[in-house]
């Protein structure tokens, strides 16, 4: 069957009566934020999307913690950890309710203000195609492509591992300030504060991974910058997916080498297209999913 035949078949389905949820086979509507490429790739690996799922949590931070201290703001770090755990728990519940075995492509939203930290997790619950029962297995911010590649190598995602550190950079003493005027020298107070904060965020993420019984954490994303509430507050957030090896040893993925012979930008030949056999593809462009 050619692509044009399939298009005509699809158009015929548009006018057909809509199937009812809970009808034959207990079918129900599904929602997914995966692209069609990801859906196809997951299908080839024996998985299918089930539902769009979410988890959100706001945790409070008491007044005054940003003002009268230097070094790490412990309350903000605790609030971050609590909010991530709470949001991940909701995400898991949402996945289980929809009949999914795991959540893929989780987008992580982090906001820190003077009096609260908010964590928002949104992803698509997936399950094995054709399986009767679905046991919850993982939450991951990996894309469908990365998930398929990871599992092919014998590894398996477990959950999100996250850690954060919020640091108020200490001021220099008047003597230090005066001694450093007009010189390009290291500012040890800032170096030490930033170094410490980075290491603590990473350490907490690794502790979070250990709690998941993960052997490692992949696709770690580090976010850093000044907090919106104060120019002197610097925040570090580290998030990744905890993984463990399911096979006896890592399986080497041997990719095929491909030398593409097409140009990056292809010309559009109207005449050629009009005569093109059905099913031939033209150059792609930016599209919505």
């Amino acid at each position, binding site marked *: 069957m050619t692509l044009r035949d399939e298009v005509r078949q699809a158009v015929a389905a548009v006018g057909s009566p809509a*199937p009812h949820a809970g009808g034959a086979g207990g079918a129900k509507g599904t929602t997914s934020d995966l692209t069609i490429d990801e859906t196809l790739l997951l299908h080839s690996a024996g998985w299918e999307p089930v539902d769009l799922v979410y988890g959100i949590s706001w945790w409070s931070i008491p007044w005054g913690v940003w003002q009268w201290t230097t070094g790490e703001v412990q309350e903000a770090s605790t609030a971050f950890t609590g909010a991530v755990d709470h949001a991940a728990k909701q995400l898991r519940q949402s996945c289980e309710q929809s009949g999914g075995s795991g959540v893929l492509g989780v987008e992580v939203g982090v906001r820190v203000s003077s009096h609260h930290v908010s964590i928002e997790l949104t992803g698509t619950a997936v399950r094995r195609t054709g399986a009767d029962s679905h046991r919850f297995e993982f939450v991951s911010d990996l894309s469908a492509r990365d998930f398929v590649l990871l599992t092919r190598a014998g590894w398996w995602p477990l959950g999100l591992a996250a850690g954060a550190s919020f640091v108020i950079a200490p001021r220099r003493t008047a003597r230090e300030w005066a001694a450093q005027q007009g010189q390009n020298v290291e500012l040890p107070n800032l170096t030490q504060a930033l170094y410490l904060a980075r290491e603590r965020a990473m350490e907490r993420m690794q502790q979070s991974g250990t709690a998941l019984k993960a052997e490692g954490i992949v696709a770690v994303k580090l976010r850093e910058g000044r907090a919106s509430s104060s120019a002197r507050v610097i925040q570090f957030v580290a998030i990744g997916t905890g993984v463990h090896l399911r096979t006896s040893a890592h399986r080497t993925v041997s990719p095929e080498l491909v030398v593409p012979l097409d140009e990056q930008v292809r010309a559009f030949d109207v005449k050629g297209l009009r005569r093109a056999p059905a099913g031939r593809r033209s150059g792609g462009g930016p599209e919505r999913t």
Partner: protein
Amino acid sequence: MAAAAGDGLPEAATRRLAGGAWSSGLSVSDFASCLDMGMEPVGYVQGYAVLQWSWFMATGGFGMGMGGRLGVAGGWGVTPQRGGQYVEQWQCPHGFVSAEHRMYGANYELTWLEDSWASGWGLATGRMVDEAKELGATGVVGVVDAMRPLVGGTTVEFRASGTAVVVPGAPRPATPFSTYLSGQRLAKLIEAGFAPIAVVATLSAVRMLGYCVTHYQLAGSTAGTWYGSGAGGVSGVGPVDQVNRAQAAARRLARERVRAQLGADVLHGAALETSEREIGEGDLSIQCTLKGTRVRRFKDFDPLPDATPVVRLA
């Protein structure tokens, strides 16, 4: 739909659609892909609706949509009202403190706002589809929609546009299909066995009027700790339960509402967006939009081989 096609379309639109060169909003590559699929563009179609608008209507304050019991002693007071409208209430655990103390709090769905949004979006997309009908189109591809403030902050415009296409040799549906997709990805969607049916979207809106504990938490105050957590007080660091319930409710409502439109179909390319507005200290208005293309399976997935990993040497 306020006006049927032809009768309600501007005169210039009727003239434009009646003849002359066809127009299209497709990029050149999308245009090429559509021709490959056997979809011929017949015209750029659009629909608009301007609505008087307020996110904070005077009648939308405390009490609007509230039919439940106040005075539920502490904890959660889950009382869905009016045919499933989301309402939850909270009561101060401290007893009487002062006239300014927030004795009650509530989360409730702003149904008037949701209805207004659904009306504006429905009018714009409906008019776009009406233009496609006027052209005898099979469907509308590459839909782009938006809502934007228009004049003085009290009016908003809903807009929807796309490219109407015909598929020679295919039966013309009573209502043309519509999809956010076009080009290569639309071809893949159809090859995967999904037929585009319609663009769907919904807005859910929840207002949160914080009670004393939520107010303390959002202001960073530890006043509530005097009573200990057992009596409803809060520690300095902890979950803001009322906000969390409101945020989760906004997302759940959006998903349920879209699901109600799907039947056994699939929402492809779902885009979930949320926003909050602080309407006063300790009070929030939360909106959540969920959009995507409703697609229907018309054939099973063709068996796919395992994907082959490659390294490009380009």
